[in-house]
């Protein structure tokens, strides 16, 4: 019955309840989105890094993969030495550069050998000979190329000087998808020896990827990844070596701003929930002092009065939870759309990954905040001085 009384109290003032629920819903939605934000970027980064299938990365000292133009000059020596570790399955040397086709820039990765997972061949086959080239769909569209076509590759900047530079011919043998591609980026794959030749840097590599031997499900425990990374780092103190989670830590600084932003806004959302419930219920109790005193005089226990007030809070929070969950889900998509417009972000990255886990966590946290906020008005209601209040109501 107290729930019925609480419900009637809540709907007694429809407009007030509407705005209260609206404000609470937005607070719940914002909280849910901020929880998604703090986990979304990390999840996406980790997913993309893990999808490449290599657990350790060996880079020039102080650099991150493709973050600079720096190269490892004796990359084959490094790769050979790393492969001697019994825990290592194989290595992959990668050399990045920018080539031009008809003055159109083309980001090119030179890789070696087969059995790699840096990219996925969706049509055709992988590179075999030194003249084979793979293109992503953006490159295929830009060059109007199909499998079997020949492309003239040149190094350095576009312009008339290119006319005097010798071109290297390559045959398109396949179309690929690359997880790290930026939106609109044109990417190509060539054998590493071809890229080294074009750059005039034999045995150079931008970094070396290391694949570890795994047990089942292709999973390598984190401590083993770190152990191999540490071992390689000891062997080559002039290089930077990262396991996947160490790479995540290196990226932490870039993620720090968003994580802190989400923490601040989450706190504010909870504060708004707390304040709104506290204010609405406190004023509501003040309005109904006479009613409450009459109930107490009739023999209603303090606990019953408290449960009535807490029930009102629970009702407001329940309504807000439903609306807030829907709003939060929709907002996540909208906010993600804004942030993924960033030009320096690979196409597959997400900031917000709609998830019921975060929504339920937001609802639970808001619920706790709301119930705590309702405690003081509930206690105040139960402690109303009956004779004094009845007297004041008559006056």
């Amino acid at each position, binding site marked *: *019955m107290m729930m*019925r*009384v609480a419900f*009637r*109290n809540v709907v*007694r003032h429809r407009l007030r309840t509407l705005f209260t629920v609206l404000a609470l819903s937005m607070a719940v939605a914002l909280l849910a989105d901020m929880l998604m934000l703090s986990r979304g970027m990390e999840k996406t980064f980790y997913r993309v890094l893990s999808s490449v299938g290599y657990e350790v990365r060996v880079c020039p000292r102080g650099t991150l993969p493709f973050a600079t133009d720096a190269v490892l000059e004796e990359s084959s020596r490094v790769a050979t030495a790393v492969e001697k570790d019994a825990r290592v399955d194989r290595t992959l040397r990668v050399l990045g550069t920018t080539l031009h086709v008809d003055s159109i820039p083309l980001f090119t990765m030179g890789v070696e050998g087969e059995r790699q997972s840096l990219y996925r061949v969706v049509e055709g086959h992988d590179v075999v000979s030194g003249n084979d080239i793979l293109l992503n769909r953006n490159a295929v569209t830009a060059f109007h190329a199909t499998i079997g076509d020949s492309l003239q590759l040149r190094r350095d900047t576009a312009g008339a000087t290119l006319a005097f530079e010798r071109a290297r011919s390559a045959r398109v043998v396949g179309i690929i998808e690359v997880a790290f591609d930026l939106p609109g980026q044109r990417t190509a794959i060539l054998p590493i020896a071809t890229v080294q030749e074009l750059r005039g840097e034999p045995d150079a590599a931008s970094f070396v990827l290391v694949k570890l031997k795994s047990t089942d499900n292709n999973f390598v425990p984190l401590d083993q990844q770190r152990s191999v990374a540490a071992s390689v780092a000891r062997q080559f103190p002039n290089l930077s070596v990262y396991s996947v989670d160490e790479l995540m830590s290196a990226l932490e600084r870039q993620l720090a701003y968003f994580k802190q932003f989400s923490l601040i806004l989450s706190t504010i959302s909870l504060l708004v929930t707390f304040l709104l419930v506290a204010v609405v219920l406190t004023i509501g109790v003040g309005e109904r002092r*006479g*009613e409450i*005193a*009459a*109930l*107490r*005089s*009739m*023999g*209603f*226990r*303090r606990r*019953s009065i408290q449960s009535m007030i807490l029930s009102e809070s629970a009702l407001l929070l329940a309504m807000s939870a439903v609306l807030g969950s829907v709003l939060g889900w929709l907002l996540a998509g909208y906010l993600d759309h804004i942030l993924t417009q960033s030009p320096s972000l690979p196409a597959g990255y997400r900031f917000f990954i709609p998830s019921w886990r975060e929504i339920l966590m937001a609802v639970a946290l808001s619920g706790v905040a709301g119930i705590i906020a309702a405690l003081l008005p509930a206690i105040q209601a139960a402690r109303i001085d*009956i*004779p004094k209040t*009845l*007297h004041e*109501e*008559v006056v």
Partner: protein
Amino acid sequence: MPAPDDLIIRAEGIGKTYRMGSELVDAVQNVDLSVARGEFVALMGPSGCGKTTLLNLFGCIDVPTSGSLQVFGEDVAAMKEKRRAELRLRRIGFVFQRFYLLPMLTAFENVELPMIEAGTPRRERSERSRNLLERVGLSHRLKHRPHQLSGGEMQRVAIARALSNQPDLIIADEPTGELDRKTGASILALIKELQTGGLTVIMATHDPHAAELGHRVIEMEAVRT
């Protein structure tokens, strides 16, 4: 002289002092009164003489600051609030001047409310609510909210509510204070009818005609300072 076991109220030298800011105010001083089961006692006196305070003490809403007060044989000052609430719920019914119906509940639900708190089973309380409202002449107003009722009808609902847990004692504080003469008379007639059925009633009133309905009329004076 009623036997001690028949006394519902036994007050000896009771007083109640309130603090108003820095001042102490004696609302009631040195009252001796006994009320036997089945009696109808009317309290009369000018405004501010302490009628409401005395009713609050008898109704276990408040606790005396001096003297000895026993209600249903129990010392009120020694009772914990929980026990006093229990008595108010199950053995005492209140009728107020201002009705104090819950505005968002229907007449039926207002009457039902104390029975729910007392844990009465649904079927029983539903039947009793209906009967009580019929008894006070409001069987056609079950689903009406207080603002849809007249003053007299609201007071009838309040009376039905006061009877919902089958109390032994009814405390009525100026039950006709907000009603016109005719309506007030009908309310008083209803109270008298209920009392005749064996209920004990203590009623505070300004109205001499109302006071005449009682077995005893007690005149109160304000505390002299």
